[in-house]
C-alpha cells in the first residue's frame, strides 16, 4: 500500500505569503516594502506575521508615498538588493506610474544595457467586492502595454505560490497582479509545491469546439462557463494566459487553430484592452483557421459601481461567457 503524496491546504493569500517567506529565508537581499506591510500585516493580510519573523528592516512599512517607495525599490534593485514592493491596489499604483513606466521599464534599454533591475512589484487588482470606482479596476492591461517589464497574473493557488520565485530570480522588473477576490480561495497544493514557469499560458481544460481565453479573476468563472457549455454539448477548451507580457502567443494560436473559435474574457474595459490585443493577434495570425468571428467578453465601460447588482452587470459572468461561446458555434446564447 503506497502512501498518498503529501499535500497542504492553503488559501491564495497563504500561498503568496509562503512564497515570500521561502524567498526571504533563502536570500538575504530580498525584502518587502509597502504601505502597512508590517504592523498591519498587509492591506489584504498577505504579509501577516512576517514582521515578527523577519524584523522591520526587511518587512519595511512605508509611508503613503507610492511613487517614492516604488522608485526606492528600483534604486535598491539597481544597487544590489532584490526588493518586493507591495502596492495596495492597482488604482493606487497610478501614483507610482512615473517610476514604473519612466524608470523601471526604460533604464536598461536607454542606458545601453548597463543595468539590471531585479524588482518585483505585487499589487491587488480587480473587482467583485463592492469597493466601487477607485478600488476595483483591472488596469493590468495598461501595464502589459509597456515594453521593458514583465506582467504576471496568478489565477490559481499553484501560481500564487509558485510565480514569485522565478519573478525574483528574473533580472528584470516583474509586476504580479493578485486578484482581490482570490485571496480567500482555498485549495490543495503538493508538498513541496511544484515549480512553475513565468513564460507560458496554460491549458486548464482541454476541449475541441471553442477556446476560451482568460486570466486572473476571470479564470474560475470561465471554467464555470465551460461546464455550462458542456451541459449544452459544447466542448470548450480553457486557457489561462498567466503571463500578460510577454504574451505566450504560441499556446493561444495552437489552441485556436485546433478549435477554430475563440472567446477572450477580460474583466477590464473593452476599448484598448488586453482582450483587444489577444483578439488582434488571433485575427492577424490565425484568421484563416477561424470558423467564426472572435468574441470578446469584457467589463462594461463605466467606472466600477458600488451596488452588487450593478457591479455584476458590469463584469463578465459565466453566463455571458457561455453565451458568447455559443454564438461562435452558431447557436443563440
Amino acid at each position, binding site marked *: 500500500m503506497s502512501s498518498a503524496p503529501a499535500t497542504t491546504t492553503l488559501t491564495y493569500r497563504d500561498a503568496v505569503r509562503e512564497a515570500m517567506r521561502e524567498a526571504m529565508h533563502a536570500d538575504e537581499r530580498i525584502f518587502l516594502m509597502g504601505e502597512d506591510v508590517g504592523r498591519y500585516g498587509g492591506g489584504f493580510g498577505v504579509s501577516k506575521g512576517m514582521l515578527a519573523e523577519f524584523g522591520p528592516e526587511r518587512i519595511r512599512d512605508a509611508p503613503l508615498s507610492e511613487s517614492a*517607495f516604488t522608485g*526606492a525599490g528600483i534604486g*535598491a534593485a539597481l*544597487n544590489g*538588493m532584490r526588493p518586493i514592493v507591495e502596492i495596495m491596489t492597482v488604482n493606487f499604483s497610478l501614483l507610482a506610474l*512615473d517610476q514604473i513606466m519612466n524608470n523601471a521599464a526604460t533604464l*536598461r534599454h536607454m*542606458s545601453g544595457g548597463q543595468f539590471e533591475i531585479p524588482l518585483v512589484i505585487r499589487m491587488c487588482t480587480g473587482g467583485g467586492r463592492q469597493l466601487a470606482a477607485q478600488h476595483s479596476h483591472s488596469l493590468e492591461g495598461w501595464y502589459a502595454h509597456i515594453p521593458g517589464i514583465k506582467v504576471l497574473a496568478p489565477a490559481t493557488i499553484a501560481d500564487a505560490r509558485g510565480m514569485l520565485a522565478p519573478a525574483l530570480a528574473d*533580472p528584470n522588473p516583474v509586476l504580479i497582479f493578485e486578484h482581490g477576490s482570490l485571496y480567500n480561495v482555498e485549495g490543495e497544493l503538493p508538498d513541496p509545491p511544484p515549480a512553475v514557469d513565468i513564460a507560458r499560458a496554460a491549458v486548464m481544460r482541454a476541449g475541441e469546439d471553442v477556446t476560451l481565453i482568460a486570466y486572473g479573476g476571470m479564470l474560475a468563472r470561465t471554467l464555470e462557463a465551460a461546464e455550462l457549455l458542456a451541459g449544452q454539448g459544447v466542448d470548450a477548451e480553457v486557457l489561462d494566459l498567466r503571463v500578460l507580457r510577454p504574451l505566450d502567443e504560441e499556446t493561444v494560436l495552437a489552441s485556436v487553430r485546433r478549435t477554430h473559435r475563440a472567446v477572450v474574457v477580460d474583466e477590464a474595459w473593452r476599448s484598448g484592452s488586453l482582450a483587444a490585443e489577444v483578439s488582434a493577434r488571433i485575427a492577424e495570425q490565425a484568421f484563416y483557421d477561424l470558423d467564426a468571428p472572435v468574441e470578446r467578453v469584457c467589463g462594461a465601460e463605466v467606472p466600477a459601481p458600488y451596488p452588487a447588482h450593478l457591479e455584476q452587470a458590469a463584469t463578465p459572468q459565466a453566463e455571458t461567457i457561455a453565451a458568447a461561446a455559443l454564438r461562435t458555434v452558431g447557436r443563440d446564447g
Partner: protein
Amino acid sequence: MAASPPPFPPPSGPIPEHGVELLRDMLRIRRFEEACAELYSATKIRGFLHLYIGEEAVATGTMRALGPDDAIVATYREHGHALLRGVGANALMAEMFGRSDGCSGGRGGSMHIFDANTRFYGGNAIVAGGLPIAVGLALADRMLGRDRVTACFFGEGAMAEGEFHESLNLAALWNLPVLFLCENNHYAMGSALELTESQTNLALKAACYEVAAWTVDGMDVVAVERETERAVLAIRGDGGPVFLEAQTYRFRAHSMYDPDLYRDHAEVAEWKERHDPIELFAARLREQGMLDDATLEGLERDIAAELETAIAFAEASEPEPVESLTRHLYAPGPA
C-alpha cells in the same frame, strides 16, 4: 519677475591649492557645451539639448567632494556632471551623436547619460523622477552596510513635484545617506521661482522634513566644494540626508528650442557680466598669483585638444545597427 543676484557677498577668501584644477574643470564643461551648441546647429546633435553654461561651479564643486564609490543621480542638464565624474569626453560626445560608442550605447542621447563604471545613474528627464531612485540606491547601501553617499541633483522646479516631498520624507524617516542637491537656477523652464513656489526659501522648505538644509552661492566654486564636503561629512557614517541648495543662473536658454522670452535681457546680461563663475574665479586666481596667461592658455589648449579628439571619435563611431533595436529591452537570465 526678476531673479535677483545671489544674496551673497562677492566671492573672496582663500583658494585651495587645487584652484587651477577647479578652473580647468569649469572650463572643460563650458567648452564642451559650447561645442555641443555648435554641433547642434550643425545638426550633428538632435533632440533636446539643455546647456549648463553659467552653472558650472555647482557640478565642479560638488563632484570634487564625492568619492569613487558614491553614486550620482542627475537631471537632463547633466553633461557637465558626467564629464567631471569621469565619463570620458569621447563616450559622452558619441552619446550626444547617438552613436554606438556612446556611454549609453547611443540610445539615451543628451538627456540620458548613464555610466555604471562611475556609478552615474542618469540622465533623468522627468523632473523629480530621479529622487526616488536616489533614495533606493541609498537604502541598498544602508541595508548592505556600505558607507556610501548618493548625490541627487535636481532643479528648483522639482521642488513643486510630489516626488520631491515623498522622497525627502522617506530619506529622513529612514535616515538614508542621500545628498539632495538643488541647483536653483531660478527658472523652471520658463517659470520664475516666485511664480511656482509659495515658499521661495528652499532650504527652509526642505528643513520641514527634519533634514539639515542650507544654501550656498552656486557661482562660487570654492564655496560649493566646501559646503558639499561639509554635507558629505555629515551624511557619512550614520548621518542622515542633507539638502543643499546652490543658487545659480542659466546663461543660455532652457533648451535649444527655447527663444528665452520670459526673462529680461538686462537680467541675463547682469548675471553674465557680474556673476560668471568662471570669470569671477579666474580673476580671484590671478589676484592671488595662482594663474597667469600662460597657464590659462595651456588649459584652453588641452581642453580644445580633448574636444577635438572627442568630436572626431563621435564622428567615427558607428551608428547602432537597426537589428539591435530591441537589444537590452530585457536582461537575459532565468525565466
